[in-house]
C-alpha cells in the first residue's frame, strides 16, 4: 500500500515540469559536490611514465610529492581532470583575471581558479544543507511525535517549549553561539540543527494528533502493540510526506544561512571555499571584477530556486486537494 502511495506522488510530481527541472539541478549539484576532487584537481587521474603507472589523484606517492605534473618536464601519458587546478593553489602572477581560456571563470585576488573554488565550494553548501537539515528533522520528528502521540499535558508542555524556542531570532542566536564556540563548519551545522527544528516538530505533532485516532492505530493498540512500535511502524511513515516537503525548503534556507554566515566571516575557515565566502572575499573588487560576485551569487540563486521548486512540486504532489487530482 505504501509503495503505491509514493509512486502516486512521483506520478504527480513528474507532471510539474519546473519541479522536475529543479530536481535535475539538485541532483547535478549533488553529483558535482560528491565528485569535486575528481572534477577540479591539480593532479592527474593517471600518469604513465617509464613503464610505471601512477594514480596520483587516488594515492599518495612519495616520489611524486610536491611535483607539479602539469609541467611539460614530466613526460608520459597523463589524464587530467576537466579543471586542472586545486581550490587552494595560488598564483600571484594572475590575480583577478577575467574568464578566459586558462581559467574558465577567471581567478580571484590570490590568483586561484574560480571554477575550482566553485566546484569545491558546492560541497560545503550541499553538505551543510543535508547534515543540518538531518539534525533538525531528527530532533523535530522525535519531539513532535512524542507531543502528538501522547497528547494531554505532555503535549501542552512540549508545545509551549516549541513556542519558546521559536521566539529566539535564529540568525542572531547562531551568531552568538559561533562567537562563543569559535566558527567552524561543524558548529554552523550543529547550531542550525538545534535551532531550526520547531517547524518540523509542529508538523509532525499535527500529523500524529490526526493519525493516532485512525482505525489502524486503534486496532494495533487493541492487539497490544507497544507505543514505540506504533509510532515507528504505523504512524511515522504516514506522517513523513509533509516533513519531506518542509525539509526540502529547509535545505534551501540552510544554504542561504551558511552563505550569509560565510559572508560575515563566521562560516568555513580559509582557505576552504564556500559560495558565501567567495562572495564575501570579492566584494572589494565588485566594480572591476564582476565574475567574482556574479558567479557565486548566481550559483546560490540557482541552487535555492531549484530546492524551492522541488519543495513546491512535492507539496503539490502530496496534496490530495491539489487541482491535478
Amino acid at each position, binding site marked *: 500500500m505504501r509503495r503505491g502511495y509514493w509512486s502516486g506522488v512521483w506520478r504527480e510530481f513528474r507532471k510539474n515540469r519546473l519541479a522536475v527541472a529543479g530536481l535535475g539541478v539538485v541532483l547535478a549539484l549533488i553529483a558535482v559536490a560528491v565528485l569535486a576532487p575528481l572534477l577540479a584537481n591539480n593532479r592527474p587521474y593517471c600518469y604513465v611514465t617509464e613503464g610505471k603507472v601512477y594514480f596520483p589523484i587516488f594515492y*599518495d606517492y*612519495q616520489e611524486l*610529492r*610536491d611535483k607539479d605534473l602539469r609541467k611539460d618536464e614530466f613526460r608520459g601519458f597523463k589524464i587530467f581532470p576537466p579543471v586542472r587546478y586545486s581550490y*587552494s*593553489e*595560488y598564483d*600571484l*602572477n594572475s*590575480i583577478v583575471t577575467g574568464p578566459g581560456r586558462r581559467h574558465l571563470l577567471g581567478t580571484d*585576488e*590570490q*590568483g586561484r581558479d574560480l571554477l575550482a573554488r566553485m566546484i569545491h565550494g558546492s560541497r560545503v553548501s550541499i553538505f551543510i544543507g543535508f547534515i543540518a537539515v538531518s539534525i533538525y528533522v531528527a530532533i523535530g520528528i522525535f519531539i513532535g511525535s512524542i507531543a502528538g502521540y501522547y497528547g494531554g499535558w505532555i503535549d501542552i508542555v512540549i508545545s509551549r517549549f516549541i513556542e519558546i524556542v521559536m521566539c529566539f531570532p535564529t540568525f542572531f542566536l547562531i551568531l552568538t553561539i559561533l*562567537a*562563543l564556540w*569559535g*566558527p567552524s563548519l561543524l558548529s554552523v551545522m550543529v547550531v542550525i540543527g538545534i535551532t531550526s527544528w520547531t517547524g518540523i516538530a509542529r508538523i509532525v505533532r499535527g500529523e500524529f494528533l490526526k493519525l493516532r485516532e485512525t482505525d489502524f492505530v486503534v486496532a494495533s493498540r487493541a492487539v497490544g502493540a507497544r507505543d514505540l512500535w506504533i509510532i515507528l511502524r504505523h504512524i511515522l511513515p504516514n506522517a513523513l510526506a509533509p516533513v519531506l516537503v518542509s525539509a526540502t525548503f529547509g535545505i534551501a534556507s540552510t544554504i542561504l544561512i551558511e552563505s550569509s554566515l560565510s559572508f*560575515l*566571516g*563566521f562560516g568555513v*575557515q*580559509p*582557505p576552504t571555499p564556500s559560495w558565501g565566502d567567495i562572495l564575501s*572575499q570579492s*566584494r*572589494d*573588487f*565588485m*566594480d*572591476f571584477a564582476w565574475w567574482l560576485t556574479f558567479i557565486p551569487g548566481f550559483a546560490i540563486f540557482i541552487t535555492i530556486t531549484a530546492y524551492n521548486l522541488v519543495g513546491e512540486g512535492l507539496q503539490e504532489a502530496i496534496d490530495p486537494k491539489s487541482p491535478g487530482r
Partner: protein
Amino acid sequence: MQPRPLLTIIFAAIAFLPAGCARLAPAKDPHTLYMHMGAEPGTLNPITATDAYSHSINLRIYETLVDREYDTLKIIPQLAERWEISPDHLTFRFYLKKGVRWSDGVEFTADDVVYSYERIKDPKVACAQLKVYYIDIRKCLKIDRYTVEFVYSRPYYLALVFCGGMPIVPKHIFDTGVDFNTHPNNRHPVGTGPFRFDSWSTGKNITLVANERYRGAKPEIRRVVYKFISEPSVALQMLKKGDLDVMGVREIEWVRQTNSRKFNEKFYKKKYFMSSFSYIGWNESRVFFQDRRVRLAMTHLINRKEILDKLLFGLGEIVTGPFYIFGDSYNRDLRPWPCDPARAKQLLKEAGWEDHDGDGILDRNGKKFSFTFTISSGSKFAERLTSILKEDFSKVGIEMDINRYEWAVFLDKIQSRDFDATSLGWSDPDFQDDPYQIWHSSQIEGGSNYIGFSNREADRIIETARQEFDPAKRVKMYRRFHAILHHEQPYTFLYTMPALAAVSRRFDNVKVHKRGMNFVEWKVRSTQ
C-alpha cells in the same frame, strides 16, 4: 603602542545605508568637514578610551600640558606655559597657562591635572594600558592654583612626554560621585581644545563644532562630522559622491579605484609613512617555536617580497624590526631574511624536524609539525596571507590550520596566550621607540609580550636605554636590540604600510607632517 587589526578593520556588520537620500540634502556648508570613521568609538573619555577612533576625536576636544610639534616632534607648550626639570630627571614642575577655560566656561586649574592623575592611578578606573606608563610616577602635587609637580621614582627619557602628555579631564564635570567608567559625560566630553562636542547620534555620527572659548587661532573649519561606515567599499562610494571629505583608503582602492581623472580633480591623494608595522608572532611557549632555528625557517619560507608586490601592490616596505623604518633607531645594516625554502628545510632538519615516518609531514619525537594560525575575521589581508602560507608550508611538510575569530574573541585568545601563531600590527603614533611594552620579559604575563619573548641581553638594553638621556647612545643600544630581534626572529616582521588618504580639494593647505595630517590648519577654498 596600540594593537591594531592587520591593516584594516572591517567589523562584521553590514551597514545599511540609505544610498540616495544624501542627494536630497540641502547645499552643504563649506566650513563643515565630513570625516570617515571605520567604527564607532566606545567612549569619548580620554582616560578610559582604548581604540584609535576615540583618540582621533579626543585629540580635537581635549588638550594636554605639552604637545609635540607636527614636523620636528619637539615638545612645545600647550596647557602648560613652561616647565622645569630637576637635574636628576626626577621632578617635573609645570606652570599652567592662566585664564584657559573649559568649553563650558569654568577655568582650567591645577586641580584638574591632579584629579586626572588620581583617576589614572585609581584601581577602580579601567585604563590598564594607560596605567603602565604612570607606574614610575610617585606623586603629582598641586603647588598652587597654576602649578603642578610630578615626581618620578626613577629616571626615564620619555618621562616628560608621558607626564606632560597625560590626558586631562575637567574635575568639576567628572567629580560628582558617579562611577568614572560609566559617567554620562564619557559620551558628552568637555575640553579645552579647538573643537567642542556637539552631538553623538549612535550608529551614525559624532559632530564637533568650533570652540568659541578656544584661546588659539580659530580653525577655518567650523564643524566636523565623523561618519561611521564600517564597509570600506560603501565609504568609497560616499566619498566619490561627495558625502565624505576625508577617508583612509585601502591599497587596492589606492591602486585601482581612485585613479580616474575625475577622482583626482576632486581629491588629493596623500601617502605617508607613520611608525607602524605588521608581523607574524610565533608563540614561544609552543613546542614548535621554542627553537630559534624553527622561527628562522618559518621566515625563510615566507615570500614577503612577492606578497608585498602582488597583494599589497608594492606600496609598503619590508621591515626587519620594530622601529620606525626612517628613524635613527632602525638598524639599516640588517637585510630582511630572503625567501629560501632550501635553507628553511636545512634549519628544520637541524632542529630535529624531519619526515621520519614518511607520511609527508615533518615530525620530531613522534610529534607532527601541525599548528594553528589564529587570525581575526575582520582582516582580509591576514586571511589572504595565511591561505598562501598554508599552501607554502605544506610543500615542506608543515601542516597549518587557519582559525579566524571575531575581533573581541580574537584579542582575548591572544592576550590569554592561547594560540600558536598569529598576525597583527603595532603602531607607535608618537614615534617613542621604547620597546619595553612589547619586548621586555616582565610583560609576558598579562602584558603585550604575549608571544613570550625573553632574552637577557634584550631586557638589559631595554632597561638601561630607558634611563639613558643621550639620544646618540640610546640609538646605538636600540640598533643592537634590533639586531638581537633580527637574529632571534620572535616575530617574522612583515611590512610597514603607508597611510593612504583621499582628501577633498575643497580644502587648501592640506599638509602632511611627520605626525600625519592636521585639519585644524586646513583652509576652506572659496566656493567656485
